[in-house]
């Protein structure tokens, strides 16, 4: 699933920032007191590699400098769950791991592999994070996780030139969203491009609509399959989507065979073939690597519109740090990762969104990433991507489950009831395993 985040063009930025950081790092005196962990060696693992690994290592370097501890970073690649599981079985887990799925945190906690946050760490977490993030890092009433990195999947990206030509404005509500798309279509460019070649963009569409029409509580229940997919709230969300997807005058034709990448280039290519594309903050990376459009000038985004007066809500993802060994050094590192100081090191390097609400948003290197972060920490409710929480047979399999059913729904949006029934059948089968 990591592959969907695409490549991020952060390397040049990172290089620039390295030198800047080298100057500032010396002056920043940590509150953990220098040298108190002298001689301690900590092992840290995460799925970051390449430029992201370099950036994260800078975060760790600061910790070493402040405490005297030596920190070794290992990249576990894209399949963290398997690698970490093997390490735990072999009796050699890292002291701290940063993992991309809350489901994995739940599994490890249930097996007793994780150390709950100490009171001191918990206090730091409560000071810096909203309750939604704390809940996401908890299992069975105990707190285990520090959410170091966040991702915002409630961003709608648009071509500013197409919007200007059509006289369209940034919509705040769903009705206005449809109206602006119609306005763009009137100008001769289809309003919206959807890449429905694979299912995951469609599951993200559904999750954003559902979080707004049904509210966070129902969202939690549906995530755990405590309510069936034939629930009236699902029908309502599908009906809202059906209203958009069945209006062929708003959509770029041929969506069922368009890859997600092509839907981005359709909007930001030259000439633009559509005005708007929805997906998470990683679209900025696709735009930079695949088109000549400049993020922040030619390509901007707005928050996924509110439906029926819903409060601003964000669907997203993130990486959570968990402690696997009970020692002073690991606890100190967990506490450090929960501080805004740790996050802002990577924030300044770019390509990073922190869910830490006390990170100064002025630290973000550009307006777009600042806006993404402000939406993420400012959200009234934050929910993790539902399909990532579901068993992969339902929420992550090419050609079956939620992915395929929503692809079929995109091609035939009038069949709301039948789609809900198919989703329920697939969910029942996947959860029964």
């Amino acid at each position, binding site marked *: 699933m990591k592959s969907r985040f695409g490549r991020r063009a952060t390397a040049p930025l990172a290089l620039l920032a390295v030198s800047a950081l080298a100057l500032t790092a010396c002056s920043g005196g940590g509150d953990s007191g220098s040298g108190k962990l002298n001689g301690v060696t900590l092992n840290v693992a995460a799925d970051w590699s390449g430029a992201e690994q370099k950036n994260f290592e800078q975060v760790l370097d600061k910790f070493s400098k402040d405490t005297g501890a030596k920190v070794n970073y290992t990249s576990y690649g894209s399949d963290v769950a398997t690698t970490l599981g093997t390490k735990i079985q072999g009796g050699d887990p890292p002291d701290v791991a940063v993992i991309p799925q809350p489901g994995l945190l739940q599994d490890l906690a249930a097996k007793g592999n994780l150390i709950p946050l100490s009171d001191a760490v918990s206090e730091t977490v409560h000071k810096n994070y909203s309750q939604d993030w704390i809940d996401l890092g908890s299992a069975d009433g105990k707190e285990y996780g520090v959410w170091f990195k966040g991702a915002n999947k409630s961003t709608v990206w648009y071509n500013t030139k197409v919007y200007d030509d059509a006289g369209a404005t940034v919509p705040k509500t769903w009705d206005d969203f449809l109206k602006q798309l119609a306005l763009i279509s009137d100008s001769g460019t289809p309003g919206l491009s959807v890449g429905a*070649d694979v299912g995951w963009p469609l599951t993200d569409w559904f999750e954003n609509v559902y979080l707004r029409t049904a509210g966070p509580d129902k969202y939690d229940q549906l995530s755990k399959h405590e309510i069936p997919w034939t629930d009236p709230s699902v029908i309502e969300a599908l009906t809202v989507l059906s209203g958009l997807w069945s209006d062929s005058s708003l959509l770029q034709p041929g969506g069922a065979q368009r890859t997600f990448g092509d839907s981005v280039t359709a909007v930001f290519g030259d000439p633009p073939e559509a005005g708007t594309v929805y997906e998470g903050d990683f679209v900025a990376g696709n735009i930079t690597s695949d088109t000549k459009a400049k993020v922040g000038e030619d390509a901007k985004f707005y928050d996924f519109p509110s439906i029926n007066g819903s409060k601003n809500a964000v669907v997203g993802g993130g990486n959570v740090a968990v402690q696997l060994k009970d020692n002073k050094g690991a606890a100190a590192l967990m506490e450090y990762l929960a501080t805004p100081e740790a996050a802002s090191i990577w924030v300044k390097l770019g390509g990073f969104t922190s869910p830490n609400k006390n990170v100064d948003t002025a630290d973000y290197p550009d307006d777009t990433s600042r806006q993404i972060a402000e939406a993420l920490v400012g959200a009234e409710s934050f929910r993790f991507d539902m399909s990532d929480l579901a068993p992969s047979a339902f929420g992550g399999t090419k050609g079956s489950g939620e992915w395929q059913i929503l692809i079929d729904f995109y091609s035939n949006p009038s069949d709301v009831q039948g789609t809900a029934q198919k989703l329920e059948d697939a969910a029942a089968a996947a959860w029964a395993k």
Partner: protein
Amino acid sequence: MTDQVTTTVPATGRSARSPRSRGGRKTVTAFLFLLPALILLGALIGYPVLYTAWRSLYDATGDGFLGLGNYVKMFTDPATFQSIRNNVVWVIVAPVTCTILGLIFAVLMNRIKWATAFKLIIFMPMAISMVAAGVIFRTAFQENPNLGAANAVIVGVHDLFDGGSEYPGARPRENAGIELKDDAIVGSGAVKPGGSQDFPLVGVKADSIPSTAETAKAAADAGGGEVTGTVWLDFVRGGGGEPGQLGDGKKGLPDVTVNAIDSSGAVVSTAKTAADGTYVLSDLKSGSYTIGLPSSNFTESFTGISWLGPGLVTGVIILAYIWIWAGFAMVMISSGLSALDPSLQEAARLDGANEWQVFRRITAPLLAPVLVVVFITLIINVLKIFDLVYVIPPGSSLPSASVIAVQMWTVSFGGGNDQGLGSALAILLLILVLPFMIINVRRFRRERDR
């Protein structure tokens, strides 16, 4: 594959006498020598097959015993059953086509100069990996004619004969007294001679209207027997303007055909709009008419065939397969051809047989063993086809293209996490391949004994 090549060439030397007859000690020695190979075969083939068969009787977790439940599910689950059906289509179409094409190429190549060059070209796709070939075909058959070569050709040829309309995609402005009816844009109300009917349209790019277009203006009042009006692009760049109203520099749409239709549906008068979008329909008798813009003004340009849609996708994948494997068939068959004794054909020709008769009565029967080997190899190959089917179809047509091997991978590792059902599919595949394996082994024995 190489072992099959050697079997097709008629054996020239005598096969060695079997050592079986020479006492028990020899048997023990032979067994000892065979032991390492047997252990390897057991570990790498025997054990996995048995384990898969055992695993196929259990559910996804591996704890619950299902008996033959997975085998029943295989034929009742629509997705899995569809993949079994697709495999049947594959087995019927692909090996026969490959073998016939290979035969044609091989026989024809025997008679032309530069045969080696042509053979090389036809055999070349064999050198490309299946995944790469899949990517090539997926790109070539994309729906968008700007990306897919196949549709680019078809659209190009189509446009030579039918250039498409002037204003593709134009739609009526809503709530402006006009509507879409049977693909044509018509006035909502009837108009009598002396009246007027305006057509504010949207959905056309401002850049794409002809440069001769002038700012739209209201049509002159209609005289007796006339209906007038204006057809314009009801859109102002950057927004603004009153929807459905002229002004704000809105452009007229020239060269739009306008029809007056009487109550029986017949077109009684036709006009074309001027540069400012105005038109005059004349020679109308008294009565009431529907004024309409026929669909020929707006039909979307032809965008080609949806090759990778659910209907055609299996055909495209089979085509990709043939593209790769026809070369293999050709090379096998030509090696068989060159091993034939040419004097037989010469003799038939001397006896007055024409080329077709020589081919039917002499060449084809002599080639039959080679053809059977090629055919059976291809059947086995087609039964376990995976890569092309995994790479070519877009998500929306994946279920309609799936085959057993792809389904097996998807349900067990691709996210389905049901290795019970996956094992059952693997066993099905094994059972399907077995008869052809047996035929091949029998043939191999017969060749050796000859």
